[in-house]
Structure formats: structure tokens, C-alpha cells
């Protein structure tokens, strides 16, 4: 190809200037071009070859969306398979942010057309949408209504083409077929909070976990395993393909030891009294809890939606009776006369008395200058052990308490019966209660936390379950069960077995190795005899309640002073006498005499258990306390 010299001048060139400056300018432009192309090439090299790997990683992150497919939690069944906690699907109404128009006017129009559908003002929808979009991870839907009614859902499904931006999504929430029944022991499920997320690796935001009761203790069984779906998505979040998925594993079901009928009987009896209280029913042979309730109670269904602060506060408000407080295991009360069998066992074991020894009960006794009286100072005359149980003679036990002061025998035996210790039930929030000992009080006195050191009066008070003693119904049921079964301190448990979704048994819960205490069988029989008379002999303290019950019952009333409140009413029963299978403990705050409020609740529980009803009885000595 021919090259032209730069100063070539051709004929006919009317405008031909000197070509030299043009060449120079062309060279300058060429130099600039060289610079620009070099910049592009260098940038290309650095972007692609030097830092390329970073961008590959970024591009890969870009395109996948990992969604967690939550597993439905397992069900909770009673011992007969009745569903106590199930699941129901909840329909949430959501907006797809990628399809909501950006134009404020069009968006406003959408919200206004949605307003009558979800029955909320358009402003509310706009606010809700904004906050959802702000708080949720990108690509997720904005929830307008969490738990929509069927009518709205049907309407939206029928008019889907009018609202392409609206999604109806299904989600599982807890369902409680028996309403408030066993609310305390079942517990509830809540969304994982910041603290949970920090301490547990297996949780991500939005996961739920058991917050109390069975739901909490057996969370790992009930939870199941969330599946994941890794989706390939495009820039608008539209799903382009599935990369890898693991299906969710539904949680296992838990079959409780609870007998729903008995539970309902106990709760309704307690509710009918209208005072705060609690009950426990325990199988004396293996520690299976047949019923466990506390009044007042809560509707566990409220936890399926977010609670307002005021609502949450009300649940623990003492003026409202602290409905969330599970009195059956977390309560700590003086127990009154229901404690007497423990005192009797201790005294008999120490050889301080024989069962036949008779004491003159004049209604009061003075020990170290302090006078202790029977309830209403009523004299019971000459009483032996059986009679002292039957009529609940305080004087008889005051004397035993006095005799055992300084020997620790009463504390020793109390401790053996599990007083002052948690029972180890598979629920959280159990209280230990308090077993007063000289060492405990003297230590407090030394640090100035109490006004006086241990005195004989403390032991005298303890002998009838008064003074500083604190226990809960579960502890009393366990102690009585040991009396009933001849010395086995049971570890109460709530679960029979876990089952998979199909109902196949996965794991049977064996009663845990229980602690044995050595009870003299004769002593035990005589105490049981006294308790049987107390329940069903005409002079017994709860004859009016149990006198007409066709099953033989051994039971003890308790009326504990609990200043500044009114008397704490107690009843603990074993049935059938003499070889019981069930122990029932009931307490009612400010319920007055044990026979008046607590015993009738125990009767309802036993009626349900034995499927028997009590005939009304009249007469009896009218002994109450």
C-alpha cells in the first residue's frame, strides 16, 4: 500500500494547509488514544486477572438465596394420645416488594384498594409495608396480616388477578385443642431473641423455640430439623432454579404422662374456688405425673402472635395473681399439718414414741415459756399416733418437735423426704423451698439477717409444717408418695415416650433411678392408718369431703398460717389405701381450712382418677383445722 509523505500536496487541493501541524496534532490525538486504551487494558487486567477471584465469589453470592424451610414442631399428647398441643396453619397476607409499584401514586392506589380487603386504613398498610421492607432481609415478602381469617384469604384467592402483588403464605403455629388446660406445664413457643441467636448456633432469626414447660425442656425433640432450599434467583428475586435442598424433618411428638381428664378435673375444681392455688397428681409407683396445674392460668394461644408490652407485663402481675407463675412447682408455702407424717416418721425412727403412746391433748402446750395451741385451741383429749393423725392434734406433734430439737432428726428425715430440695421434675422453674435448720438460722443471725438465733420454738413450728418451712405441692406429693410406696423417693417426670410423626415409638422414658429411704413398715402402716381415718373416719378432719368416697383414701388436711396473707389451705392424699397408686397434693392460697378448699379439689381429682363419685355424708365430729 502506498504511503504518502506528510507534506504531500495534491493538485486541486483548494484548502490544503501545511501538513506538518496536522501530523503533529494527529500524533497528539494518537498519544491520547494510546493512553486511554492503556488505561482500559490495565483496568481490565487488574479487575479480571488480579482481583478476579473476589468477583467470582461475589457473583456466586449474588445468585443464590438460601431459604430455611421450617419444620412443624411435634405434637404433645396426653397419656391416652389425646392431642394437647397441635399445629394449625396460619394464613399470612404478604406483599411482594418486587411487584409493588415504585411510583408513589400507583403505590398509594394499591394500598387504598387493599385497605377494605384487609380491613385496615391505607395509611396503616403503608406504614406497615415500609417497616417490614426496612426490617426484613431483601427479597422477602412484607407481611401485612399475620393471621388472616378464611374469608379474606378466599377473597384474595378469587381475585388474585386484581392483586398480583399479594401473596398468601401458610405457616404453622401452635394449636391448643384443650384451650387453657395444662398451660403451665405445656409452656409456650416464642421467637428466638437476640440472646438466643448469640448463644445457639443452630438458630437463625425468625426461628421459634420452646420458652417454658414441656416446649422448653423437650425443645430438641419437638423442634425437628429445618430444611434448606438453595434457590438460584435472578436480580429481581425471581426463582430460576433449585440448587440443592434438604427437606425439613418434622419434630417428634411427645406423649405425656398427663391424664387430660384428670388434669381438666383438677383445673376446673381449682378454678371454681376462685383463688390462686395449685395441684399435683403423681403415680406413686413410678413418678409419672398424672396432673399438674396452677391457678390462675393463661391462654397459651396468645403466644402465637406478638405480645404487647402491657400484655406481657400482665402475665406476671401479682395484682392479677401472676397467671404465668406455676405454683405447683415454683410456689413456696408453709404446709401446715400435711407435714405431720414426716414428723411422725422421724419421731418413731428415733424411738421417742411408740405408736401406742398416749398423750393428753388439752388444746394447748407451753414450751420454753411460749404457748402453742391447736387450731381454735380445741382439746382432743388422750391421743395416740393414729388418733393424732385422724383429728390432727397439734399438741401431740409440738411435743415431738420439742423432743427432737437439737438432734436434727426432724431435719434429717425432712431432707430424706425431699423437703428443701428440687424434685428434679423435667420442667424449669422449680423451687427448692426451705427446710429450716439450726445451722441455717444461726448463720442468718450471725450476718444480721434475722432477729434471733435458732430456738426450740422453731423445731416445734416445723413439726406441724409451720414457721420458716416452705414447700410446693410437688414436693409434698413426692414425700407422700414415698410414704405410700414404702420408701421410694420418686423423680417425677412428665413424659412417657417420644414418637415420630407416624406414631412409632422412638424412645421410652424410663423412670429414673429413684432414691430409697428406709421406712419401718409398721410405722408406715400406722401412719397410713391414721391418715385413712383422718380422711374417712367420722372424726377425721376431711370426713365431710371423703367420708362418702367409695375408694379408701389416706389423706391429710393442712391449714398453714402465712402472714400477712390468710391461711394457706392444703390437702395431700394417697389412694387407694392401703396400697396407693396415686398421690395428690393440693394447695389454695388464702383458702382457709384444708378441708374447705383444698380437699374438695383433691376429691375431684381422685374422682376422675377412679371414675367414682363421693356420696354426700352428714355428721362426723366436725373436726376441722
Amino acid at each position: 500500500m502506498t504511503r504518502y509523505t506528510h507534506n504531500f500536496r495534491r493538485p486541486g487541493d483548494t484548502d490544503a494547509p501545511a501538513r506538518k501541524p496536522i501530523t503533529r496534532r494527529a500524533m497528539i490525538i494518537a498519544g491520547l488514544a494510546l493512553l486511554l486504551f492503556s488505561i482500559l487494558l490495565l483496568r481490565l487486567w487488574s479487575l479480571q486477572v488480579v482481583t478476579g477471584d473476589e468477583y467470582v465469589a461475589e457473583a456466586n453470592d449474588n445468585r443464590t438465596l438460601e431459604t430455611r424451610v421450617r419444620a412443624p414442631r411435634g405434637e404433645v399428647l396426653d397419656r391416652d394420645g389425646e392431642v394437647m398441643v397441635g399445629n394449625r396453619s396460619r394464613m399470612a397476607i404478604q406483599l411482594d416488594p418486587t411487584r409493588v409499584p415504585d411510583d408513589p401514586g400507583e403505590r398509594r392506589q394499591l394500598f387504598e384498594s387493599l385497605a377494605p380487603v384487609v380491613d385496615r386504613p391505607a395509611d396503616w398498610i403503608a406504614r406497615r409495608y415500609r417497616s417490614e421492607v426496612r426490617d426484613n432481609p431483601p427479597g422477602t415478602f412484607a407481611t401485612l396480616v399475620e393471621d388472616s381469617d378464611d374469608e379474606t384469604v378466599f377473597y384474595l384467592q378469587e381475585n388474585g388477578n386484581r392483586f398480583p402483588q399479594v401473596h398468601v403464605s401458610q405457616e404453622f403455629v401452635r394449636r391448643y385443642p384443650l384451650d387453657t388446660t395444662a398451660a403451665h406445664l405445656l409452656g409456650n413457643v416464642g421467637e428466638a431473641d437476640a440472646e438466643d441467636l448469640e448463644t445457639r448456633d443452630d438458630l437463625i432469626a425468625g426461628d421459634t423455640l420452646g420458652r417454658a414447660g414441656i416446649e422448653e425442656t423437650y425443645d430438641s425433640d419437638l423442634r425437628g430439623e429445618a430444611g434448606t432450599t438453595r434457590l438460584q434467583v435472578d436480580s429481581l428475586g425471581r426463582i430460576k432454579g433449585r440448587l440443592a435442598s434438604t427437606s425439613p424433618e418434622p419434630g417428634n411428638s411427645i406423649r405425656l404422662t398427663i391424664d387430660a381428664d384428670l388434669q381438666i378435673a383438677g383445673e376446673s375444681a381449682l378454678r371454681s374456688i376462685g383463688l390462686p392455688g395449685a395441684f399435683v397428681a403423681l403415680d406413686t409407683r413410678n413418678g409419672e405425673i398424672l396432673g399438674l396445674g396452677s391457678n390462675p392460668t393463661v391462654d397459651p394461644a396468645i403466644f402465637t402472635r406478638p405480645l404487647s408490652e402491657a400484655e406481657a407485663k400482665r402475665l406476671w402481675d401479682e395484682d392479677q395473681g401472676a397467671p404465668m407463675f406455676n405454683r405447683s412447682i415454683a410456689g413456696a408455702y408453709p404446709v401446715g399439718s400435711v407435714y405431720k407424717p414426716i414428723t411422725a416418721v422421724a419421731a418413731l425412727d428415733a424411738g421417742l414414741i411408740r405408736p401406742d403412746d398416749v398423750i393428753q391433748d388439752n388444746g394447748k402446750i407451753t414450751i420454753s415459756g411460749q404457748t402453742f395451741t391447736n387450731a381454735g385451741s380445741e382439746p382432743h383429749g388422750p391421743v395416740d399416733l393414729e388418733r393424732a393423725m385422724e383429728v390432727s392434734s397439734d399438741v401431740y406433734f409440738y411435743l415431738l418437735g420439742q423432743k427432737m430439737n437439737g438432734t436434727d432428726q426432724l431435719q434429717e428425715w425432712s431432707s430424706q423426704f425431699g423437703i428443701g430440695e428440687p424434685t428434679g421434675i423435667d420442667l424449669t422453674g422449680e423451687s427448692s423451698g426451705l427446710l429450716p435448720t439450726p445451722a441455717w438460722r444461726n448463720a442468718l443471725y450471725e450476718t444480721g439477717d434475722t432477729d434471733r438465733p435458732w430456738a426450740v420454738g422453731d423445731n416445734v413450728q416445723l413439726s406441724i409444717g409451720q414457721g420458716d418451712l416452705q414447700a410446693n405441692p410437688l414436693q409434698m406429693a413426692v414425700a407422700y408418695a414415698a410414704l405410700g410406696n414404702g420408701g421410694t423417693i420418686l423423680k417425677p417426670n412428665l413424659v412417657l415416650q417420644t414418637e415420630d410423626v407416624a406414631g412409632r415409638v422412638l424412645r421410652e422414658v424410663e423412670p429414673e433411678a429413684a432414691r430409697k429411704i428406709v421406712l419401718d413398715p409398721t410405722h408406715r402402716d400406722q401412719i397410713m392408718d391414721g391418715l385413712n381415718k383422718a380422711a374417712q373416719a367420722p372424726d377425721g378432719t376431711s370426713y365431710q369431703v371423703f367420708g362418702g368416697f367409695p375408694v379408701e383414701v389416706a389423706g391429710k388436711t393442712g391449714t398453714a398460717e402465712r402472714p400477712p396473707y390468710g391461711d394457706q389451705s392444703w390437702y395431700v392424699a394417697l389412694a387407694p389405701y392401703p396400697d396407693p397408686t396415686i398421690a395428690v397434693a393440693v394447695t389454695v392460697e388464702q383458702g382457709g381450712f384444708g378441708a374447705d378448699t383444698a380437699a374438695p379439689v383433691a376429691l375431684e381429682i381422685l374422682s376422675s382418677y377412679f371414675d367414682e363419685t363421693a356420696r354426700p355424708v352428714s355428721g362426723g365430729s366436725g373436726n376441722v383445722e
Partner: protein
Amino acid sequence: MESSRVPRAAPGRRRTRRSLVDAAGLRFVDGWMLFATLGLAVCSVTVLSVANQEGVAGAPDLFPQRQAIYVLVGIVAMAAIARFDYSRFRDLRTGLYTFLCASIIATFVFGFTSRGSTQSIDLPFFTFQPAELGKLLLVLSLAGFVIDGSKHGSEVGRTLRYLALGLIPTGMVLLQDLGTSLVYAAITLAILIAAGVRWTHLAAIGTAFVALVAVVLVVLPWAGAPLLKDYQQERLTSFVSPSSDPIGAGYQQNQAKVAAGSGGLTGRGDLATQSKLGFLPERHTDFVFAVVAERYGFAGAALVLALFALLFWRALRLMTLSKNLYGTLVAAGIACAILFQVFVSVGMNLGIMPITGIPLPLMSYGGSAVISTFIMVGVLQSIHIQAHAGQRGPWVR
């Protein structure tokens, strides 16, 4: 060249061949330039056919098919222009200039709005963007005015006159599309440089430009009277720190960078998720280079740049080759228009230039741009042909 290759023993064959090329009037076509042009067009159709076209439901091959048609139309137009003596345009400068301004005004009147700006006129078969062809019209008319005016007035006056002639259409286009108006400004500047305007004048123009940018981008918005539309301002400023606005204007920049960066040395091929899954916006127009870079890597992207460099070199070469100063100025204007667009568009794809919506010549999808660029190359070929024809004699039109 031709004569040395053809054996003397076969004069008849030689005559046949010559007559074919001569009949087309394309005897002295610049082969390298043609190679670069057609190579880029082939690259364009290839890239458009692999970039995901989710945007066109039911017609995934719409873009490559249409682009191929535009290329064919462009080739015909290029051939037609090439055999025409470009010097004639000099005489038509006033008419071209009037048509340029009128067509830009027409877009205001008849145009329809797309993505926030009015740029095109909807013809029955084709959506025509006058501003694309206007680049060439500006080159052809402004070069004519420069030569025409080189005999009148003082040097400063001449510089100001050329500048004014260039900036009138630039300003009008600015109201429609920022990127295109920058190309107009670059063309104006290139012709001023090629025309031999004093460096002091050029320096003064540069200073004024910088001051103007500062006023438009900083002072006016601050004073509450922004000249640029919001989306324009955002695009121009978000480039400084794209991560500050990862879902707005910075989003595009980031996604383009990720796409280009992830290509590596040899590209991701079918794994090119950024373009396939649509994370890369405007992947058939503004960000077509990032698609090349992601899919074919440094190798493919460098090849495209090499073709542009070849095209530019062949164009710039015509500055010193052309038979008259008009050809020199036209070649400079077209070469710089291509250089500017390539640098800004590729730079934008690589995250070193602001997002201005400038298409990559010949590569980006779009009939107006593709056909206009082919016509520009046709003019360049005409300069080449005319230069050789004038020299070699036998074939003079």
C-alpha cells in the same frame, strides 16, 4: 498492490475482477478498517445471542436477530456512502447543520420518553434516535464551517465561532441525554484540535469546561436550582463511591464490576450468572462490554478493545492521508467520537467512569447507533478511497 498480486498471464481474469470492485466503486477500500468494523459487528451479534434476554418474553433471540438486521442495513449504507465523495458534504454543511438541529428539536415535539429522557422518534418500522446520526452530521457540518471560516476574522473570533457552532447542538442534546451530548462536545473539541486552534485557546476551553462541570454538579444543586435531572446527577456522582448507594445508581456500577471482574482470564462461559440471571442491568446496551468480559474473560474483552484500537488507528491515519483538509477534520471528528465513546462506555463497565448511558459503538444493541456508526465508517472509507483515487489516477469520480 492489486497488480502485483494478479498473475500477468491471465489478463482476462484480472479485468473481470477489477470491473466487479470498480462497479461497486470500492476499489480502494481500507481492508483493515473493514475487518475491524465487521469483526465488532460479529462480536456484537454473538454477545447479544448469549446474553440473557429475559426482558423480551417469548422471543429470546429478538435482540441478536434485530441487531443482525441493523448490521446488514448498516453494511449497505456504509458501502453506499463509501463510493460517494465525502467532499460533497462540505458544500451541504448549512443544510446538514440545519437538519441536525431540526431533527433534535423534532424529538422534543414528536419523541417519546424512555427511562426518564426523550431521545427517539417512533417511525412506523423503527424507533429512530436522531441524536445518533447527529454525531456524523455534526462532524460533517462543523468541519465544513471550520474550513469555510478559516479565511475570516481574528483567531479568537474563529475559535469562538467554531465552539458556538459545536455547542448549540451539544446543548440541545444535553436536554435529552447527557451521554450523547458529551460525545458532541468531544467531537467539537476534536475538530478544534485538528483544525489547528491554538493550544492557549484549547486550554481556556478546558478550564471553562471544568468550571462548568463544577457549577452544574456542585454549585447549582447546592443553590437549589439543579440543571441536571435527578437521575443524571445520581449517576454522575454515585460513580465516585458506588457502594454508598448499592441499590440505586451504584447498583449498576457494582454489578457491572462484579460481572467484568468475575470473568477472569478466559471467562466464565455458560456459568456467567451475572448476565444470565439478569443481575447486570442493560446488558444488551450500556453494559454489553461487561457481558463480554464476564463470559469471555480478559481474552475476549481485550480482543474487542484491540478491534476498537485497530478501527481508531485506521481512522486517525486518514487525518494525514486525506486528499483535503476537510477529510482531515472529518476523520479526526469521527475517530475521536469513536475513541470517546469506547473509553467512556468501557470505563463505565469497568467502574472507572460515571454511568452516562453511552452505547459502545457497533457492540451495543440499537439500530440508530449501529447504522449511524456504519455510515460514519462509510465516510471514513470514502476518505480513504478518495485519497487513493486522487493519487493513483485511473479511477476518479
